[in-house]
């Protein structure tokens, strides 16, 4: 499997990372190199093997679905690059 420039552009878009058009060829080549390395996995017989879900056999704990925390919007917003009137502020999303 090799990654072409269009695929590299699509992956960058999916990852929400802007990549200048002139850098896409190098990116495609790098990603291809890494994928080739991963393709060694095709040598392994994985028939009847269940994909690992949890590395240690454990049941996730359950707890009552109650509110136990909160009520401090100023702390939540303290690290925001832009916050106004108790909200996170972002560029306009709807016309």
């Amino acid at each position: 499997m090799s990654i072409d420039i269009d695929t590299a552009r699509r992956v960058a878009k999916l990852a929400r990372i802007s990549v200048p058009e002139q850098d896409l060829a190098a990116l495609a080549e790098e990603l291809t190199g890494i994928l080739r390395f991963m393709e060694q996995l095709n040598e392994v017989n994985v028939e009847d093997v269940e994909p690992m879900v949890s590395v240690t056999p454990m049941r996730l704990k359950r707890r009552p679905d109650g509110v136990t925390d909160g009520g401090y919007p100023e702390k939540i917003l303290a690290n925001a690059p832009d916050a106004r009137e108790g909200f996170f502020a972002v560029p306009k999303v709807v016309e």
Partner: protein
Amino acid sequence: MNLNELTIAQAREGLRRREFSAEELTMSCLAAIDAGQALNAFVHPTPEIALEQARAADARLAAGDAPSMCGIPVGIKDLFCTKGVAAQAASRILEGFRPEYESTVTQKLWDAGAVMLGKLNMDEFAMGSSNETSVYGPVVNPWRCDDRELTPGGSSGGSAAAVAAALCLAATGTDTGGSIRQPAAFTGIVGLKPTYGRVSRWGIVAFASSLDQAGPMTKTVRDAAIMLQAIAGPDPKDSTSAEIPVPDFEAALTGDVRGRTIGIPREYRMPGMPEEIERLWQQGAELFRSAGARIVDITLPHTKYALPTYYVVAPAEASSNLARYDGVRYGRRARLAQGDGITEMYEKTRAEGFGAEVKRRIMIGTYVLSAGFYDAYYNRARKVRALIKRDFEEAFAQGVDAILTPATPSAAFGLGEMASASPVEMYLNDVFTVTVNLAGLPGIAVPAGLDRQGLPLGLQLIGRPWDEAGLLNMAHCLETAVGFVSKPARWW
């Protein structure tokens, strides 16, 4: 001997006997940090907090309430959230981030009376094996063999260098594919990755959630036992932390390994591995044999597939975990152009906030999880991961108590020397450590000797799940038998 050069166990004795105060011990470390700036290990020193905590520790010591870590000055990897103190994961995208909360591991340390000296340099988001992906610039290894500056390894390179250079008595590290054990081996210290679930991950910046585990980086095995005791245990804030009782790790250090069985996996004999590493490994096995352990050859047939499995699973999880860095809730937002919408904000923020290796891994992860490739890459890797774990289970089922391997395929290399290498060549650094994360097992790197250039080399012991106590005891036996006492000659 300066106070900063003490081990935790030695300092604990001195503090309890009131031979010196926690404040004096802390001052000694702060002076070492000031004098050690050329190492670039401490990136956010916190001397005011340290002195305040030291005075509080002295009050506890005076009152006779002194847990083992009381008054012990430690460094904290930049990956841990520390309330009111920068936690940047060595990334530009978290510039200015000051958490409003404290990670469970660090909270447990402060509750036990430990003293925070500051935050330690690392590879960006713990992705790297040489500390060269850090936004703060690389850490320099205190060990040297000529006029080159060497890497301390990564990603916990700042932690390793700080402990090796005695800037602190111990440090926290995290290990996703070898990030505690490889830097420990490169700097001649002890690094322990506990069983997955032994230590809470709450408040630690996530890289690959099914692999990440925090652990101690210390001068001795005993210190690793003491520090693990302080940070281990179930945590209601981390649903993957295990409800398993925490034994007394230090009490397990009897040094008696008679009747124990140590496995030597033939697949870890790598073509092109330096002969010195092979020799150290054999010596390690001999030392165990002399101490009364049984040495058996074992096979872990899927070992060669561990790295490619890791480089599917870890980037896949990272691409999901790092989606939260979007310039909205914390950290840095890119400057936007007139008319830029929210998508441009995300794309520009992430393009300038993440470094090259992090972007590469996010994109690889995005690709292997994307429609049409999920089965071919991600699901296949999860199946091979199950086989890798089964290899270990079969070895343990045959009565093996621990597995002895080299910690790294080489000694520390020069900063910049891998600049022209492909990403895959850099990934080979983790070849002996990454299997342990994939199988969720505990692993410890112990200094085992010097190579002919005079650089430290480490051996790794891999234990049964939840048997850190037995593992630490075997590591303690190895440490005692090897008698590694070398320290880096001070040049900084």
